[in-house]
């Protein structure tokens, strides 16, 4: 059954929200992304089809967070909890966006959508109901770190949407955790708007279980003098796509991205990034790491768009990849599209294996090959993990990456 019919069968037209109707109409015209398009040509067709196989589900079974939130200083939210949020403290406020504002904002976003580029968002918004949408407005200072969870239940296709407006001069640490259960598909779309002089340290940690799938789309708009730092980690998904679209709408903003994807068995995980500089003096420092083992496939495609208006842009995009098996595959394509003539832009890609001489050195000190490889990998991982904000130590990310199959 095609995805549009599946959604309609689950939810009659009378029960659909305005946004759902708009998105379904768009999807109806062309229900699937073009497999020949740049964004989708490397996507594994059977895995993508498996993503859409599960039944649409708006309800979550009881969600058990991986560990209790024992820290008083961290705000923990679960998308779909429907727990009203209205935190107004002396220095800051975190309040829920009204339905009207949400609809208005999302409609504005949809009007700019490109079918192939934003197909994941179109699907997300077609599937989603207001219950599984969390819209927040954050302002003030000394804001406690925030953890936000999204999850998919077993044998279900769940969609979660997060929208955050960060008001002027506001600084926060936010960790977004996407968890996939056995045989599940999670569609997660996130829209972030950073107003002038605001700063967001954003962590995205996504990991699944057996045969879980993820479409994770992240859309960020940065106003002038804002700073956006993203540390991301995706692993243990049968199929996952992480799409990052960042627009420095007026230039004069700063973006730092350190991302990593780890694939094993026959998994496929890809990262697509598009960074648009729509004004002068923009800054980007991006590093994306992939590690592919067994028969898995890791993909990175990044593009940096520097139009004429974006003079004095300083952008760097580096893709570093480790291929651990003769049967694994890595595709990487960092790209620059520069029209402006006074810019400093660079990009590069490396694919290598574990360094044999480093391994031999460690082995001559009595360290086994397995341990030596782990030591090397841990140093490879640490650069990214250390960039992820909020309670990363409690998540034992390094241990998960080194010791779980």
């Amino acid at each position: 059954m095609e995805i549009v019919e599946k959604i309609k069968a689950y939810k009659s037209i009378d029960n659909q929200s305005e946004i759902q109707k708009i998105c379904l109409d768009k999807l109806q015209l062309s229900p699937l992304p073009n497999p020949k398009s740049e964004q989708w040509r490397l996507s594994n067709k059977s895995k993508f089809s498996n993503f859409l196989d599960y039944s649409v589900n708006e309800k979550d079974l009881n969600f058990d967070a991986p560990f209790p939130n024992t820290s008083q200083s961290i705000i923990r939210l679960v998308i779909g909890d429907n727990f009203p949020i209205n935190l107004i403290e002396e220095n800051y406020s975190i309040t829920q966006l009204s339905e009207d504002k949400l609809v208005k904002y999302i409609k504005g976003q949809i009007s700019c959508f490109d079918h192939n580029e934003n197909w994941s968002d179109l699907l997300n918004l077609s599937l989603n109901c207001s219950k599984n949408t969390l819209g927040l407005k954050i302002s003030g200072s000394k804001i406690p770190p925030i953890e936000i969870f999204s999850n998919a239940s077993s044998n279900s296709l769940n969609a979660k949407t997060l929208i955050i407006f960060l008001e002027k001069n506001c600084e926060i640490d936010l960790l977004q955790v996407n968890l996939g259960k056995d045989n599940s598909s999670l569609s997660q779309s996130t829209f972030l708007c950073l107003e002038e002089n605001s700063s967001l340290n954003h962590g995205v940690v996504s990991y699944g279980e057996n045969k879980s799938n993820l479409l994770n789309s992240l859309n960020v708009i940065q106003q002038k003098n804002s700073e956006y730092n993203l540390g991301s980690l995706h692993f243990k998904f049968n199929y996952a796509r992480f799409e990052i679209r960042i627009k420095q709408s007026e230039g004069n903003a700063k973006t730092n991205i350190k991302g990593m994807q780890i694939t094993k068995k026959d998994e496929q995980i890809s990262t697509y990034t598009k960074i648009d500089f729509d004004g002068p003096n923009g800054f980007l420092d991006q590093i994306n790491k992939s590690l592919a083992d067994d028969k898995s496939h890791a993909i990175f495609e990044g593009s940096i768009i520097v139009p004429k208006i974006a003079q004095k842009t300083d952008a760097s995009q580096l893709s570093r990849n480790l291929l651990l098996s003769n049967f694994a595959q890595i595709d990487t394509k960092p790209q620059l599209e520069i029209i402006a003539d006074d810019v400093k832009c660079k990009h590069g890609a490396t694919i290598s294996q574990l360094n044999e001489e480093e391994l031999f050195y460690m082995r001559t000190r009595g360290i086994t090959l397995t341990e030596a490889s782990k030591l090397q990998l841990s140093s490879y991982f640490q650069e990214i993990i250390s960039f992820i904000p909020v309670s990363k130590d409690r998540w034992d990310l390094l241990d998960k990456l080194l010791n779980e199959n």
Partner: protein
Amino acid sequence: MESKMKESNPILEVENLSASTDNLPILKGVSLTVYPGEIHAIMGRNGCGKSTLSKIIAGHPSYNITNGDIKFLGENINSLEPEERAQSGIFLGFQYPIEIPGVSNLEFLRVSTNARRKFLNKEELDTFDFEELVKEKLEIVKMDHAFLSRSVNQGFSGGEKKRNEILQMALLEPKIAILDETDSGLDIDALRIVASGIKKISNTQTGIILITHYQRLLDEIEPNFVHVMSDGQIIKTGGSDLALELERKGYEWTDNFIKET
């Protein structure tokens, strides 16, 4: 030349060893026996096979032994993995110690030391106990504690890297240490520190092989035997005076030995 140490069993016996890499023969029948308490020096031109010999004894996977045996404490170790050789007491000090970004020197030293201790049936050390031990060993090579918090050899000067090698040797307490051009890149003071460290660590139960080009290290550590290598073979063996003669006459002098061989 007879050694006064030969009453005990040899630590290392290299017997008619030939080895190649990528089908290119490098060693062509090397024989060498080291008894406890002995210091051997191996000298020779660049590319004569000195470093290859050290790597093959340590078990480098890029080289194939095509003939001959390496015996350590009487056991053939030809097929042992590098880590098994290291755990049992073979230490290779690298000519160019490898930098390992992101791996803390302290953790690296602790994991290495515990691997050796485990082999010796000694209790493994936790972080606190290891800190105590390493503090004591740092004195031997006059290294600052701050080196421990940095990544292995990363950003170290040439001298610091070599001192870090000797620190590892001190922690691992090997039965035999093969030090590949440990003196290269060292200034006079650093050479003295390294040489004094080697002397402090060595004893009547350990063997040392010094691979070097220069007499200056051998002025600090007097060898019992000096071997001259050329084209994958040991072409002459003598006492410490052989190194002095080499220093005076140069390697051209040894070309006559090749003809004789």
